[in-house]
């Protein structure tokens, strides 16, 4: 049996969101199992299943070098730019 990751869209307009995983022989069985395991109380309107081995993930040990460079780029946020009071909001 293969490991599948399960993603569910709670209602239309929202992203599919990771909810957990399960074992199945193929994607068809994975979808059926996901319906029974993860949507017993109207938790979703759409399900994605993805074989866990098909997912590439960033390495947590490189988290600093990957994500920290964003910290000092405050000029990417609107609040970096003061506005004259007369202009007020923009």
């Amino acid at each position: 049996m293969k490991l599948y990751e399960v993603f569910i869209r709670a209602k239309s307009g929202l992203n599919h969101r990771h909810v957990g995983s399960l074992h199945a022989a193929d994607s068809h069985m994975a979808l059926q199992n996901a319906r029974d395991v993860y949507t017993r109380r109207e938790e979703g309107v759409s399900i994605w299943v993805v074989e866990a081995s098909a997912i590439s993930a960033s390495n947590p040990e490189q988290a600093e070098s990957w994500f920290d460079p964003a910290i000092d780029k405050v000029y990417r946020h609107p609040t970096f730019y003061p506005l004259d009071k007369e202009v007020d909001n923009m």
Partner: protein
Amino acid sequence: MYSQGLKDAEGGQEPAGLLKAFQARIDKEEKIEPRDWMPEAYRQTLIRQMSQHAHSEIVGQLPEGNWITRAPTLKRKMILLAKVQDEAGHGLYIYSATETLGITRTKMTEQLLSGEAKYSSIFNYPTPSWADMGAIGWLVDGAAIMNQVPLCRASYGPYARAMVRICKEESFHQRQGYDIMTSLARGSAAQKKMAQDALNRFWWPALMMFGPSDKDSTHSAQSMKWKIKRFSNDELRQKFIDATVPQAEHLGLTIPDEDLKWNEDTGHYDFGDIDWQEFINVIKGYGPCNKERLRARQNAHDDGAWVREAAEVYQQKKAQL
């Protein structure tokens, strides 16, 4: 992502710097995720606790499954079916979360069937009466909720997330149990007697579910430090008693404890001594139904072998197409 990137410690000394940084993350209430570095002892503690939790959900289906075909009305039958299905789901959520720590589902099943891994002592008690379905939902699921709500904030991300789902569903379990008790307590004299009898048999085992007293609990201190545990066994037990006694009184049922008394000074109920020898015996495998429960699990595993095999063959066949 949930696939397993297990970094083994190989029994070697773990670097002090990593250990310190790890504890600092925990102290800051940061969640630990599957591929983050973690001490081997943290990993093993979680595997033990989480797999035993999952096993409890699965074995917990047995005492109630016993009553599905004999529920008194179609409504009760549908409710009980939904509850037992939930227990299977809860087991699966936690098995999935445990697998992220690097242990396989097959291994966990082996550990359950061989008796190496434990499950909650409560499921080794028999359910000879319909009222037991009420007592289990009200008391056993009620006690489980006391334990599980703090686990929604456990430091290990996948465990905490699984617990959030479980707690949402568990409230229904407790209420449907209390609903059964209410119907019986307000029914005929015979029905009221059934309710009282179930309470008599399940009260003390429910209190034992919180585990040994704090002074005798072996795993508590480290688990608290790692924020796998938030409250001590005795604190949770007291909370449960304080919440449950008025519910019993409301139904006109009597808690089977002569020493139970409201204490104005502490603001809590005082209660009698728990028979810890009974608890130890049940944990060791000498409870009323230990053998029966494991045999039922073993039979289910054996009877399902052809399904697993067929799924494997089907998977291989499809891969060749």
